[in-house]
């Protein structure tokens, strides 16, 4: 959940979208559009989580399949790669908070944030920004699904965990929206993002590494 809340692509696109919306429309309309962006992001998060359930079920829960441990090792490899990527490639070198996505994709997101004028545009932009971060979120969803499936038989808190996992990615968006409501602007938000850049890198790297270690311990060694 810490990783989900630390990822920067969605908050970056959302901050841009809030900026353009407040520059073009009235406060009420901007607020309405930003809400639909969050709704789009939330819907895709929920859908991705469902897909991850399916993948986890497909690859890990045929208990007697010999490949199960193979997929577990694949997962470990992916997690280690992500922890290294979050340290070295998540933010591009240079000033600002340029992210790992291709420049063409970043330009597209910026153009859509600038041109979005209806609720459906805002919804789609939220959904698209969520999909762009798939590389970093899908393995997490898969691992959480595995843990939740294991829990489901014994504990009812697994439902709460599922709910939390779907809600947590949009908390940073609500914080940004709240900051815009308080009168902060894109410059303030971007300055704080730049200031926290290295901290975010380290948090992401350590979080992925700790998940990897826990995964190896509980799913492979145990």
């Amino acid at each position, binding site marked *: 959940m810490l990783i989900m809340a630390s990822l920067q692509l969605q908050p970056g696109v959302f901050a841009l979208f809030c*900026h*353009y919306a407040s520059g*073009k429309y009235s406060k009420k309309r901007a607020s309405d559009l930003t809400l639909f962006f969050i709704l789009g992001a939330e819907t895709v998060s929920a859908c991705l989580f469902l897909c991850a359930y399916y993948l986890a079920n497909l690859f890990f829960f045929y208990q007697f399949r010999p490949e199960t441990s193979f997929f577990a090792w694949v997962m470990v490899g992916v997690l280690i790669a992500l922890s290294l990527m979050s340290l070295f490639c998540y933010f591009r070198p240079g000033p*600002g908070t*340029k992210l790992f996505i291709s420049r063409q994709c970043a330009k597209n997101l*910026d153009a859509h944030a600038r041109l979005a004028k209806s609720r459906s545009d805002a919804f789609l932009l939220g959904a698209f920004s969520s999909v762009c971060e798939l590389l970093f979120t899908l393995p997490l969803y898969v691992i959480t699904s595995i843990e939740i499936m294991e829990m489901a038989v014994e504990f009812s808190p697994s439902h709460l965990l599922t709910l939390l996992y779907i809600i947590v990615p949009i908390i940073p968006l609500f914080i940004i929206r709240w900051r815009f409501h308080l009168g902060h602007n894109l*410059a303030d938000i971007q300055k704080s993002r730049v200031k926290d850049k290295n901290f975010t890198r380290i948090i992401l790297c350590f979080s992925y590494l700790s998940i990897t270690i826990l995964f190896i311990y509980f799913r492979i060694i145990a």
Partner: protein
Amino acid sequence: MDITNNKTLIKNLKIDAKAVGIPAGAAEIFITKSLKAAEKSLKSRKIITEKDLERAITKELKKYNADFAYVYENRDKII
């Protein structure tokens, strides 16, 4: 080069100014003065790159509003 008549640039700058919280009238004056000054400062150059233009406009905008200049300078460095 005539940047004072570049409608897209002026429109985008106006959106940025409003979002930063600068009143419309003041924004219009800031933008016009900044673009004129930027154009004047680049007049002597034979070759002008997009970065030169961006730097000149940012330098002029900084005189009026730091946040506005920061947003303009960093608009493609956010995602």
